[in-house]
């Protein structure tokens, strides 16, 4: 849970920055971000996790050693959060980029015409205005984040799936434990859906309902 929240949160930050960089950044920034989103989205998460976790900690320790510091043990929780955030960030970049492009250009122009600084425009106009377009995509990302934590079992981090395997192995009651784990994931998703639904309704407060028009 902590990992999912942390990874999703940092992933959102990376995604917002990435989307801005891709839309408004210079050519170098854009190319770098293109490489980032393409590679991260092309490589399976499992491979990325192994790569970033083992290669990443190795790299950090080498740098530390080169600078004359002692090797450190990377905290599994922190590493897990950053590895997943790195993956989530790439997907969030694309979701948020698309959402920003959906905001009517006139509203951003109006903000410029009234002397808003770029930071204020982002905070007061662009982000709240793009939110309704981003929520469905971000909700998917959140649900994926909750389940990607299971992949961290591979690097020895004990989360729900890993704990279940251990418990099931010891008691031989595989079915019970995995059903219970599945139910827990389902419960998490159901609670998430309720919360996301509320956020989505709030973010769409300025928009007429589409449902009424389809009847």
């Amino acid at each position, binding site marked *: 849970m902590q990992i999912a929240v942390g990874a999703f949160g940092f992933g959102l930050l990376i995604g917002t920055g990435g989307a801005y960089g891709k839309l408004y950044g210079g050519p170098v920034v854009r190319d770098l971000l293109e490489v980032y989103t393409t590679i991260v989205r092309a490589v399976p998460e499992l491979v990325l996790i192994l790569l970033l976790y083992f290669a990443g900690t190795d790299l950090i320790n080498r740098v530390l050693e080169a600078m004359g510091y002692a090797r450190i043990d990377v905290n599994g929780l922190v590493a897990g959060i950053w590895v997943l955030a790195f993956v989530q960030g790439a997907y969030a970049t694309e979701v948020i980029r698309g959402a920003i492009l959906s905001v*009517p250009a*006139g509203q951003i122009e*109006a903000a410029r*015409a*009234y*002397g808003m600084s770029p930071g204020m425009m982002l905070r007061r106009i662009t982000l709240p205005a793009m*939110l*309704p377009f981003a929520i469905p995509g971000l909700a998917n990302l959140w649900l994926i984040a909750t389940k990607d934590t299971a992949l961290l079992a591979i690097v020895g981090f004990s989360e729900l799936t890993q704990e279940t395997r251990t418990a099931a192995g010891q008691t031989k009651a595989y079915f019970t434990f995995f059903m219970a784990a599945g139910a827990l994931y389902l419960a998490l998703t159901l609670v998430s859906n309720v919360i996301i639904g509320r956020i989505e309704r709030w973010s769409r407060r300025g928009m*007429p309902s589409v449902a009424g028009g389809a009847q």
Partner: protein
Amino acid sequence: MSDSASTSLATAETQNGAAEAIHIEDLHKKFGQLHVLKGVSLSARDGDVVAIIGGSGSGKSTLLRCINCLENPTSGIIRVNGEEIKLKADSHGHTVPADRRQIERIRSKLGMVFQNFNLWSHMTLLENVIEVPVHVLGIKRDAAVATAEALLDRVGLADKRDVYPAFMSGGQQQRGAIARALAIQPRVMLFDEPTSALDPELVGEVLKVIGDLAEEGRTMILVTHEMKFAREVATHVVYLYNGLVEEEGPPEQIFGAPKSDRLKQFISNIH
């Protein structure tokens, strides 16, 4: 306005003592190969209502949008309240404002009204009106709300304060957008074809609001297709043709006794 015919040459102070609010000199704007403005000069003193008319593609909207640098001019001088907008060339050779804070400060004194209203859709009408006063100008929220309510009352939208723009008619949205522009206590109001996106039956309510503003002596620059309206409210009319000022003068002269053949033809086509 005895000297309005010579305003293109006017300096910061003119005979009648009114300060020059907007001064544009030899403005050029190119979009790639397309040369939209080919050296336009324009001046508006306090209390002037300048109507810019012209056919589609004549550059009138571009001219208006250059005043607050929504479009960056390729070359030329723009002065707002006597302060010249500093421009520089960026790495691609485009002209851009040199000082972001300067252009933001100048923009916050110009009340822009757009063709498509451009109210912020995630805010109620009241929130739209107080947004710039509170967050850009630093006015206290209570004071801003009081001002906003008075303005909404004035444009006849007091009962819509908590409604989101998408739930209002085009005419209501445009009147709300005018209230948003007035809330910053603008030195100059800029109107970019404020009625062109409206259904015909909604045009009147918006023109009435703009007409009242002209009557109380607000300085305004108005790009419009409503010739009858321009004739009624403007103190000075500028006819643009193909990126140049073809003819300018008081409305009686422009509409009553046009000199150039193109303006004559333009006016006869409208009527």
